[in-house]
């Protein structure tokens, strides 16, 4: 059915408003990441510089803005300490402060955090692909008593809020000396009812005839799983991998509880160390945030098609 022009206009306007809801904060963070200290809340979008050098009395002199007076500014000449009024346009220039990125990178061991996040993300992703695909295959294809009940119970774990499990899992990790280790972050992330459900739903769409044909050719259960089911499930596996990796990459809560050694922190947790309650450097923090989210955005752009398909397939978001 073709929409009328006003309806389409309204729809797109509404969509634009909703997209702005998400895009504007991101743009603010991006612009702030190249702003000068003290210029974050100056009410302007572009990063202006209010100190530097300007020609005065026939010489280039270092100046610092002291006061705003409409179109003019009161500046202090650094060399002489003299206060002088100048025109705003002569002093203020659009000037991105790219050094925020270099400073953010050197303030904390970003390289180390990056590797930690990558290692944890890859382990969780690979592990979940193995565990969830095996579980999904069992629930989709294998016949055993109580299968649907077990699947229902497994699915019911989706209803348990994460924080409820925090203390029991923490105590369990303590018993096994896994606190402050990568394993402590990876192991609880390996099992996912969501991933199992997603793959089971996909496996159910694969014609059973293919499986029967493989069995007639002598393939066992594992053979069918490895040679028939997995190769046909590329899109579902890619969608799950993308969801899991992005989720693991951005996870803050669990790593912040389990990891205490500064060398083992992940990027989001390391980024939180920029915070101080009473002193705050927005420029560097946002530069660090941009560095942190870059891989997740890249991953999203590359696998966008699979993510969309994954959402459509299961009706669930990652």
């Amino acid at each position, binding site marked *: 059915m073709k929409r009328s022009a006003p309806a389409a206009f309204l729809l797109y306007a509404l969509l634009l408003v909703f997209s702005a809801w998400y895009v504007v904060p991101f743009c603010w963070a991006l612009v702030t990441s190249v702003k000068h200290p003290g210029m974050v809340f100056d009410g302007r979008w572009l990063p202006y510089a209010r100190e530097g050098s300007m020609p005065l009395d026939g010489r280039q002199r270092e100046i610092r803005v002291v006061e705003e007076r409409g179109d003019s500014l009161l500046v202090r000449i650094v060399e002489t300490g003299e206060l002088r009024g100048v025109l705003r346009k002569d002093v203020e220039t659009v000037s991105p402060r790219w050094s925020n990125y270099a400073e953010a990178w050197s303030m904390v061991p970003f390289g180390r955090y990056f590797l930690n996040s990558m290692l944890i993300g890859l382990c969780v992703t690979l592990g979940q692909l193995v565990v969830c695909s095996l579980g999904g295959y069992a629930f989709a294809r294998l016949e055993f008593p109580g299968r649907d009940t077990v699947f229902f119970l497994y699915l019911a774990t989706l209803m348990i809020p994460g924080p409820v499990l925090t203390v029991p899992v923490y105590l369990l990790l303590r018993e096994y000396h896994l606190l402050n280790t990568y394993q402590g972050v990876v192991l609880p992330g390996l099992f996912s009812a969501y991933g199992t459900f997603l793959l089971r739903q996909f496996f159910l769409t694969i014609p059973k005839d293919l499986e029967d044909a493989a069995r007639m050719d002598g393939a066992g259960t594992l053979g069918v799983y490895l040679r028939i089911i997995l190769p046909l499930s590329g899109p579902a596996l890619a969608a799950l991998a993308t969801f899991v990796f992005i989720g693991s990459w951005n996870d803050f809560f669990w790593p*912040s509880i389990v990891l205490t050694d500064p060398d083992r922190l992940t990027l989001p947790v390391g980024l939180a160390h920029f915070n101080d309650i*009473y002193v705050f450097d927005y420029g560097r923090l946002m530069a660090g945030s941009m560095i942190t989210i870059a891989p997740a955005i890249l991953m999203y752009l590359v696998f966008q098609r699979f993510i969309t398909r994954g959402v459509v397939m299961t009706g669930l978001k990652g």
Partner: protein
Amino acid sequence: MPRNLLLAVCAAALLSAGLFLLLTADDPSRYVVFSTWGTPSEIAGFRTLIDHYNATRHPLHPVKLSHSEQYQYTERLLVQSAALAPPDIIHLDRKDIPLFVQKGLLEDMTPLMKGDSSFDPGVFLPGLSAGCSVAGRAYAVPHNFSTLVLYFNRDHFDAAGIPCPDSTWTWESLLTAARRLTIVDRAGNIVRYGCHMQIAFSTLLQQNGGHVLNAALDSCVIASEECADALQFEVDLSEKYRVSWSMLAQNLQWDDMFKGGRLSMIVNGRWAAVPYEQAMGKGTVDIAPLPRGRFRKGAAAVHVMAISSGSAKKKEAWEFVKFLVSDEGERMVNREGATIPATRSIACSDAFLRHVLTPAMDNRVFLEELPSSVVWPFEQGPYLTTFTLQSRFELAMRRVLLHEATAMQSLRGMQEEINRDIQVQRRVPDRRRFFGGLLSWCCAALCVLACVSAWRLLGHGSGRPGSSLHRRGAERKL
């Protein structure tokens, strides 16, 4: 075969990841765990110090840093202790000591201090050790502190022709200067604010003669004329005189505005000195004592080192604590410039007074504020956390700002809520009481069971011929 190759790569990746994870398994009993918070530069300071200690003292169990960001540090320590996995050494704010002692989480360090001739409790600046004891027992030693001071933009004062703040300043002087420093543009928008006092809000109450808690720290007494006047003054700065933005605005925005020259005066601690000097340029920013109210009161946050009562390596932890408060340790922490060393020998030396990162600042002001200082932000006692007090106070302030209540009404509401919180906390049973209570209930239940059995044995409730039960049974059969 590409598919086999893919499988092989996946298997190899899984295997190597598994091996890596196994090899990095961590046994906390191998280390003495030192827990702290801080910005990257503070953490860098502590790491250098720990590396130096491990390299030069060769302890049996090396010290290991455990770090958390500041927002949730106390809560995290409480969770770790509840999970019986506390760190061995805890870097703590002095105001939290009563709470931790009440929960039995800190080791009584008195025997360690008395039994160690190499430890001299007199090395600390006067007043810092005071809050480290509860009921005459020492639970911590001071390590560093920060007093709150008034940071001001010297350029703004010069441009306005106003003398810079000094120790004679009162609330009136602050207000007068702030009104002259505030700039309003033609459209009526404020382009520069005069002052921001929000961090010192609890100190202002005490400067006016008020108190948040009583002397025993077990009841809130904030609903007084003195506190109401102080709260009204804070609200008036933004609502009446318009020299300060709404007190409800985020503190962090003010910090950025001060750095950007859109605010002339701000109260903050030593931790802000280096960032301000770096952002604003040498000589632009300087410090002065807090303006006084009816009384001269400063504010100090004192950070201490304590040993966890659950630690299995208390002696080794004590050795590291001694190293932390030694001249060598304090000098290393002082390098970052974010705090003030607690030991007199370093704090009163050029290493701090002419600190290389804040050379143009009169660092002596930080020390001069200490003798008159009260606990900042709140002396919270054993039943409250800073979060509880702070959030209640912000709520009270919000009510006044939104004209929902007068300052006095708002504080009365806050007092009632906090006293209710204290009552709730006091009712929380400790483990012994819980098990004692459980035992009593079990005994009572056994008594009831015994009584019922005896009653039935005596024939009252049994199914013997003639008894009521027997009759009912017979009726049912029929």
